[in-house]
């Protein structure tokens, strides 16, 4: 339940061991490399011995290899979908160091394979681009297919042949009359229509050579156009083109077959992606290190509990010196959280708000306690809770290899499911009121129902509202309590009194005071009322709190006038407490939403079932509506519960004490996608 203490680690090693040491560190993944700026700590400015060496060109090569291999993997995945595609739950495959080293030896062969796959894919893409070109050529040939001469045919010894098209569909007579009217004194022409469609008419016109010029002129007036194709006779061309098309398709199929044959090398390609990613990361670190001709220095931070074994392993394996130091109080050390199995699952929730700053309290444990309770209250159905618990438990036990982040999320929902089950039984909700609906519809026993252990919110919404506010107050006061703890721990006892205790007095006093007023207790439907003397005591606390806040709320100002004004403004913050507490009414609203919508589906099911007269068919219809309806309700309300639990934690709870702003611990590790190498 805390922030891991960090130590500063300095490793000085021989350059000949550089590669092994870095790879070792990468596999351990416990050291965040942070090289201090020159002039600070170890290295002087313009140090004559220790220099940084720019490795970015090597890094660029590795990054390029990663991208090329990724491309090849995409090609393979498109040819045959990956049966072992990484999913949310599968996690990375573990590989032993010896296996890793054997595979590394094959890296050149694998890269050749990668280039081979990519060139196949490139060839295939070229073919795929050519196919439509050939197809469109075939299409332009279509109207001319019946014509047996080449389309450039000019004529014989005495005749001239015009081959071409008229726009639109033109009947034979119109062509004759058109030529005659435009070229009056010609001997005659012979028109034959090769094909016609609404868009164009393809024709051959034969005229005597001596009339050729006139006919051509006439044709020009009629928007005659030469065909767009030249070369062999259309029929032959079409044959050539379809042969080409067949060849292309065959070639493409062949290439795809070849690619498919290569899919059994998929794991190698994945490996090479990870391998070059790791090398690229390593070279990034390498560029950062200070090196002399024979030695190098690595500096960084590691969690205290890891440092001893790290130093021991390093010193026993390599000729190097490892120094572990306490970081300077001013250093902004990276922050990693550590918690027990109950609170660790919500670390992700905390981190996605903010990493705790240096010296700040890790709120995971209180967040976890409230998270499971609030989620449970909002979903509040025992059956839904049991479903969530079972689903998470199955996933957790089946997928042993899950990444820690996903595993934590699953555990979080497991605990949330337990919370949901608990509150579901408290409020007597099991798939809504299905026990009662089922008994009365199919067994004719409307007296059977699942009794709530405590009460049913739908019968007493105001009671539930009051309970929600109570939970809210506890949540908010816990937040304030954490602020008190942090301030006291840092020795700011007066601040703790001014900023926390006065607020406890004011808000707590107000609550007790309200509970002595008959109007409020009646409104909340409480059967008890605090006796009148309590009101006086509460009033005293309220006044102490209020006066204290007004006097100290603006204590950073020296000017008393300003100070009181600022204090009054702080006092105005009481309204934010009101809205914070009211915000917890969502516990009632979302809880009711789950149970009422369940009831709606149960009722629909029972209405349909009694509509067909019960029996087996009625039961089956009921079952269908029941399953679909409750699946929908569970999904949408679990989403609502998740989102609003986060909101209550982030806005209401964290708002009371949590500043965050720390820098997450990012160790130098195997930042891979498919494999993880273990010692």
């Amino acid at each position, binding site marked *: 339940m805390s922030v891991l203490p960090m130590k500063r680690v300095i490793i000085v090693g021989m350059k000949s061991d550089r590669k092994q040491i870095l790879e070792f560190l990468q596999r351990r993944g416990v050291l965040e490399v942070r090289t201090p700026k020159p002039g600070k700590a170890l290295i002087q400015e313009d140090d004559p011995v220790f220099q940084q060496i720019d490795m970015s060109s090597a890094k660029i090569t590795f990054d390029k290899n990663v991208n090329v291999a990724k491309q090849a993997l995409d090609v393979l995945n498109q040819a045959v979908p990956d049966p072992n595609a990484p999913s949310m739950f599968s996690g990375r495959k573990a590989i032993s160091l010896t296996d890793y080293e054997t595979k590394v030896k094959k890296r050149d062969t694998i890269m050749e394979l990668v280039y081979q796959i990519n060139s196949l894919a490139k060839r295939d893409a070229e073919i795929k681009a050519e196919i439509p070109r050939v197809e469109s050529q075939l299409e332009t040939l279509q109207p001319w297919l019946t014509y047996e001469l080449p389309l450039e045919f000019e004529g014989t010894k005495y005749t001239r042949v015009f081959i071409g098209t008229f726009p639109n569909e033109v009947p034979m007579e119109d062509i004759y009359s058109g030529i005659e009217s435009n070229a009056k004194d010609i001997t005659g022409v012979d028109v034959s229509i090769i094909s016609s469609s609404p868009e164009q008419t393809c024709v051959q016109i034969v005229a005597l050579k001596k009339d050729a010029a006139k006919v051509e002129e006439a044709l020009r007036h009629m928007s005659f156009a030469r065909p767009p194709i030249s070369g062999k006779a259309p029929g032959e061309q079409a044959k050539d083109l379809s042969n080409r098309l067949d060849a292309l398709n065959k070639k493409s199929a062949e290439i795809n077959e070849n690619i498919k044959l290569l899919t059994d090398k998929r794991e190698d390609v994945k490996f090479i992606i990870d391998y070059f990613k790791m090398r690229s990361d390593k070279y990034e670190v390498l560029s950062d290190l200070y090196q002399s001709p024979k030695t190098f220095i690595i500096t960084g931070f590691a969690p205290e509990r890891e440092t001893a074994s790290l130093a021991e392993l390093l010193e026993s394996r390599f000729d190097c010196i490892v120094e572990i130091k306490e970081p300077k109080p001013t250093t902004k050390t990276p922050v990693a959280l550590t918690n027990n199995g109950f609170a660790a699952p919500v670390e*992700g*929730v905390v981190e*996605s*708000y903010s990493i705790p700053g240096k010296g700040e309290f890790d709120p995971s444990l209180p967040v976890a306690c409230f998270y499971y309770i609030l989620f449970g209250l909002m979903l509040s159905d025992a059956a839904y809770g049991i479903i969530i618990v079972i689903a998470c438990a199955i996933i957790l036990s089946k997928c042993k290899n899950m990444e820690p982040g996903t595993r934590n999320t699953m555990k979080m929902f497991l605990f949330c499911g337990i919370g949901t089950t608990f509150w579901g039984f408290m409020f007597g909700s099991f798939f809504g009121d299905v026990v009662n609906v089922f008994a009365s519809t199919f067994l004719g026993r409307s007296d059977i129902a699942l009794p709530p252990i405590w009460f049913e919110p739908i019968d007493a*919404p*105001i009671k539930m*509202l009051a309970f929600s506010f109570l939970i809210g107050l506890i949540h908010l006061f816990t937040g304030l309590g954490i602020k008190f703890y942090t301030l006291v721990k840092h020795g700011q006892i007066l601040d703790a009194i001014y900023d926390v205790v006065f607020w406890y007095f004011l808000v707590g006093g107000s609550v007790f005071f309200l509970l002595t007023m008959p109007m409020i207790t009646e409104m909340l439907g409480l059967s008890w009322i605090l006796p009148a003397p309590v009101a006086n005591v509460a009033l005293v606390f309220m006044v102490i709190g209020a006066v204290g806040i007004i006097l100290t709320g603006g204590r950073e100002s020296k000017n008393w006038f300003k100070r009181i004004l600022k204090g009054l403004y702080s006092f105005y913050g009481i309204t934010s407490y009101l809205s914070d507490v*009211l*915000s917890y*009414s*969502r516990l*009632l*609203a*979302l809880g*009711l*939403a789950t149970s*009422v*919508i369940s*009831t*709606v589906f149960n*009722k629909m099911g029972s209405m349909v079932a009694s509509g067909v007269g019960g029996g087996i068919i009625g039961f089956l219809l009921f079952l269908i509506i029941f399953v679909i309806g409750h699946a929908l309700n569970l999904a*949408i309300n679990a*989403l*609502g519960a998740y*989102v*609003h639990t*986060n*909101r209550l934690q*982030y*806005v209401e709870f964290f708002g009371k004490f949590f500043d965050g702003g720390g820098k997450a611990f990012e160790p130098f590790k195997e930042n891979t996608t498919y494999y993880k190498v273990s010692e």
Partner: protein
Amino acid sequence: MENLGLFFALLGAALSALVAGAGSAVGVGRAGQAAAGLVTDDPSQFSRALILQLLPGTQGIYGLLIAFITLTQIGIMGGSSDISLAKGLLYLAACLPMAIVGYVSASYQSKCSVASIGLIAKRPDQFGRAMIFPAMVETYAILALLVSILSIFGIANVNI
């Protein structure tokens, strides 16, 4: 004219399902377009985009909830449906917060969702925070839901 009370009560129930539902339809539709755009670019973000798309969908469900409670209270789903005119109007009034706030909040929440989808498109690691912005808008739908629920349960005990 005797049953005008029942008519107004039913009008309230219908309005709450209708107007809030329409708001959610608008909202989920709008957010869905942004989500589809994001998934074109990065299919791995599907589940996150889906969650953000669904956020404006809850108002429609709250509307249904109010409609359903009203229907059971006024006897449409069985029981006595003898509602005086005044009571009918009270039910109508009780349904209005959910109807109107439901519509407006769903619409604006979806704009937040669209913006948040844009946020996770650029910074997928910020999902936790991206989710909170639309959730802030939802608070007002929940407050309206609460007022509507409390009113409807309260009306049953009012003697007019």
